[in-house]
């Protein structure tokens, strides 16, 4: 339970961090909050030659409005999601998900960028970034680029990030007054990884759903959009019949594997239950 030896570099700028990674021949890891990386090092699931600490890079730190986007620096800590007024106003889905992320002390240290870059399929923020059609800003040896969330999550712990690239910020479209959100998850104990979780954002046109985006987590190798369910709901009002139809459609979107403690059928069932509850809540707040 002790990490293999590594050397340590504290980067002051993004360029310094990228250069250090390149110098190490990419046998390196960036460390932000470290709340998943440090256990992985302790268990020797990972053993890089050098650890590049990005916690002191000021450029990664800010939360600000940029035109029609809220831009969240990669180092935005989970606890800041609960206290930052801009998040509450312009990204309430992230605010709603934050209390479900691990435990308070983990939230004091863990970062949004780290969570999204790790892409744990059981994590809240990657799925909510997907639900929000966010864009992911990436810095790398060949410059900056931006990737849509729908193109970012590729497979289990695999993202569009190439070796040596650093996630710099997440941009989410500003929340509007005709939108509603809902989030919840089912877990055996508070703070545990969810058996299944779901978040959604709907755009309303009077009492009808003009647009809706639904993402689930803990349902497969990657955070998953429920596109069939969304198609059933667009143009409808949220009456009981339509919610039931949405629940029925969910099996077309999910193909979870059996795991030791949760059979696939149980996970789909739980996802349906959760979907129904959340759609019911969306209907109530209208």
């Amino acid at each position: 339970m002790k990490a293999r030896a590594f050397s340590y570099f504290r980067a002051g700028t993004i360029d310094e961090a990228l250069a250090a990674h390149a110098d190490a021949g990419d046998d390196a890891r960036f460390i932000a909050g470290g709340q998943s990386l440090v256990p992985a090092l302790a268990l020797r699931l990972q053993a890089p030659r050098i650890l590049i600490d990005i916690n002191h890079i000021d450029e990664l730190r800010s939360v600000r409005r940029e035109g029609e986007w809220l831009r969240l620096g990669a180092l935005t800590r989970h606890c800041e999601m609960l206290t930052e007024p801009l998040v509450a106003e312009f990204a309430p889905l992230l605010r709603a998900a934050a209390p479900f992320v691990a435990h308070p002390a983990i939230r004091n240290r863990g970062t949004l960028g780290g969570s999204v870059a790790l892409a744990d399929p059981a994590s809240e923020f990657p799925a909510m970034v997907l639900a929000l059609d966010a864009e992911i800003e990436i810095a790398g040896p060949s410059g900056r680029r931006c990737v849509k969330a729908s193109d970012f999550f590729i497979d289990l712990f695999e993202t569009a990030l190439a070796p040596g690239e650093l996630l710099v910020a997440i941009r989410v479209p500003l929340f509007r007054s005709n939108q509603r959100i809902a989030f919840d998850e089912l877990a055996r104990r508070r703070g545990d990884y969810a058996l299944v979780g779901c978040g959604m954002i709907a755009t309303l046109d009077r009492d009808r759903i003009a647009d809706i985006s639904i993402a689930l987590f803990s349902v497969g190798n990657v955070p998953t959009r429920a596109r069939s369910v969304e198609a059933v709901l667009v143009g409808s009002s949220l009456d009981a019949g339509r919610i039931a139809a949405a629940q029925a459609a969910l099996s077309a979107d999910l193909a979870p594997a059996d795991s030791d403690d949760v059979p696939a059928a149980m996970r789909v069932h739980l996802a349906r239950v959760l979907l129904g509850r959340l759609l019911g809540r969306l209907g109530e707040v209208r």
Partner: protein
Amino acid sequence: MSSAPTELDESDEAVRVRMVVNGRKVACDVAPRVTLVDCLRGQLELTGTHVGCEMGACGACLVQLDGRAVHACLMFAVQADGARIDTIEGLSESGVIADLQAEFHRRNALQCGFCTPGMLINAHELLSQVSRPSREAIRDALSGNFCRCTGYEAIVDAIAAVAEARAAAAQGRGDSSR
């Protein structure tokens, strides 16, 4: 007992780390892979911070990093260079958690005591953010602190009682800042 010479691994060589621990400036020489909790316990002999799961699940190693509770097993000592660290020893000596400690004692909110430093640091942070948390909020805040002895009930009781007492005292002083 003789042992074969080991190959020198330069990345395992100690680096100088300077921190303010419990209000005192300290410097220690640690290899980058040494966690903060091992540094606190081994080099600084502050053994009130406990090593439990070493993966952020049990909460026995909580310390304050620049005033916020963090797992000392989930960061390396070298990352704390330049930071302020407060451990259970510092919080005890300063008296800021004396009422929590007394209430834990009075209500038997500990048996073996292994989890207690982490429980106290977490409870201290909760009560600094929310003056009168519900029992549900207290349980939620403690969800990352394992206790294998008490069943938690007395711990929740103790924290709730201190919250009430502090709120009553604040009211008595006419302090409406919270």
